[in-house]
């Protein structure tokens, strides 16, 4: 049964609920999520790659036990693939079948533009859903400005106009989560309509907690070591600093290799989990993996 907004009564509920779903969140983000649920406003999450922006929406859906509808943005995304499209083939067939039928043109038109010829795309689906879903608009900065402007309309009124059918209002307001990586500046208009949260890299304690939650199979000492190693690597000014996702990858890789501690050799072997370009992995090597490890003591 889906959780209703009224049933979420305080921030501790959110923190506990998310932790039960395997997501460690701090009080600040919990407040943001709480407000998203309570006020029904979209939440824009920004942060570095791999800090768990998308995961917030997924966990929220699990927590509220509702559906997650995901719209992955990309350049050139237009309303026909985000909102709705008519099923042209089916329409053509219907026309053909109706050719000899005894119907007026108006009736035919009404028929072929009926709901069964409408292909729902994520945004329309989120509005027509019976129980409020979580709508994740992922990497909104990748879409172009025209689409962003179009989103504005949807996010403020939660209604969509389809010329042939009229206006469709949301039965239940979806919980909207937008994520952005900052590949371009989002418009102020969009920002103003959203709650905002910046997720930074977690501090060691939080990251340790995340590792313990998400990779329970790993040896306890291993998690600590990897987290410390990653935190050191993050300070190294790489082109792509490793996020939490990379830490988890690394821990899981080591665990599946049967290691219970991180030493120089295994660190080199699993470097691919952390450094995502040749330049970065060279840089880490140049710094000296032994030295980084030794510094932790």
């Amino acid at each position, binding site marked *: 049964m889906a959780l209703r907004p009224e049933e979420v009564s*305080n*921030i501790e509920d959110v923190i506990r609920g998310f932790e039960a779903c395997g997501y460690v969140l701090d009080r600040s983000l919990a407040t943001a999520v709480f*407000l998203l649920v309570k006020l029904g406003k979209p939440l824009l999450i920004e942060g570095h790659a791999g800090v768990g922006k998308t995961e917030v929406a997924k966990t929220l859906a699990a927590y509220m036990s509702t559906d997650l509808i995901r719209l992955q943005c990309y350049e050139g995304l237009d309303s026909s693939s985000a909102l709705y499209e008519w099923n042209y083939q089916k329409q*053509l067939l219907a026309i053909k079948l109706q050719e000899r039928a005894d119907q007026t043109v108006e009736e035919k038109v009404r028929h072929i533009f009926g709901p069964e010829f409408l292909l729902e795309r994520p945004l329309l689906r989120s509005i027509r859903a019976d129980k409020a879903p979580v709508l994740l608009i992922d990497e909104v900065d990748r879409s172009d400005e025209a689409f962003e402007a179009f989103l504005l309309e949807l996010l403020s009124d939660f209604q969509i106009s389809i010329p042939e059918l009229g206006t469709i209002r949301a039965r239940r307001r979806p919980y909207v989560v937008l994520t952005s990586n900052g590949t*371009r500046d989002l418009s102020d208009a969009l920002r103003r309509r959203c709650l905002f949260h910046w997720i930074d890299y977690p501090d060691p304690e939080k990251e340790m907690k995340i590792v313990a939650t998400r990779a329970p199979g790993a040896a306890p000492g291993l998690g600590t070591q990897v987290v410390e190693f990653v935190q050191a690597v993050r300070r190294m000014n790489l082109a792509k600093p490793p996020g939490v996702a990379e830490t988890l990858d690394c821990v899981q890789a080591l665990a599946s290799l049967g290691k219970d501690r991180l030493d120089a050799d295994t660190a080199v072997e699993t470097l691919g989990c952390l450094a995502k370009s040749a330049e970065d992995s060279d840089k880490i090597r140049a710094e000296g993996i032994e030295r980084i490890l030794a510094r932790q003591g």
Partner: protein
Amino acid sequence: MAFCRYARTRGLSIGVTETLGATEAVRAVPDRTLETFQFCLRTVLCSSKEQWDLFDDVFADFLRGVERQKPIGDEKKRDHRGPPTGARIQTQTGFWIAPGAKTSTADGDNETNAVSGASTEERLSTMDFSQVPPRDQAALEKLARRMLKRTSIRLARRFRISGRSGRLDVRRTIRRSIGRGGDPFDLSYRQQKRQQAKLVVLLDVSGSMNLYSLFLLQFMHALAKHFKKTDAFIFSTSLVDISRELRSNALPGAFEILSRRPAGWAAGTRIGESLRDFNRRYGRKSLSRDTFVIILSDGWDTGDPVALATELHAIKRRVKKLVWLNPLLGLHGYQPLTRGMAAALPYVDTFAPAHSLESLLALERHLR
């Protein structure tokens, strides 16, 4: 409310809507700890990373202000001198909202700061790179990155929109009409598949260009992202291929590599020879009819102008457009009379200045 008023003076953009939103948010939250209050306001009031970072400071200052000014605020209320919103407000939940009675002088100061901030940007964007005082360098670089990001987007969009034309493909239409008893019901269009342009940039890094090279390099880096393929070269007395370095994301790293390259960063110039070298080694591979070539140089040439002319002509014949950007063109009263420049001009499609950010941004006009 009080905090909003205060925060506005500190550069957070907060309007009436935000203030209302903040009130609503604070009401929605059940627990009344200071921390929650802060998180709440931050989520509602901030809308970008910069504001996010600023917020905690502003909030801390605000609290300090509250403690210091509490008695004053109360006094004001008694005297009915302070504006009603600035006075102390107690919400029905017993939640404290503190007085925002900041002295007006402080507000005034902050405002002038904000104004001068905006005009700094304006000034920097038109200023000649060589005139930028060292203390403004960082600001200019930041501005450059932002503005360049914006231009390139516009560039990309323009390419796409102009590609939106189609011609009716009669053959396919008829073929498809067979299924409907010969009525050409759905029309097929043939669309010209638009090739994204390629770019070749040649940057002069000789001594005379010293003041500009670093900025122009940054410009090249920004530009490179928006072409299908970019080949980049730096030259002074000889030519060095830096395409690979430019493609890497880490620009500061790329700088280091550049300055270590043997091209003779900041030596004399032999443009003609460098171009000949380019034509021989890379010309066939890099140049084609859908390629833009940009040469960034001041045209001070110690080599043979005839050689320069020949090589430019060779390039021009093979490419879509040859653009020469000259930083000196921004100087008042400059005439392209140097031997090299005079020899080059007949072969150049566009001759434009490249001394300031604004002039670089104007480039998008030429790349079409």
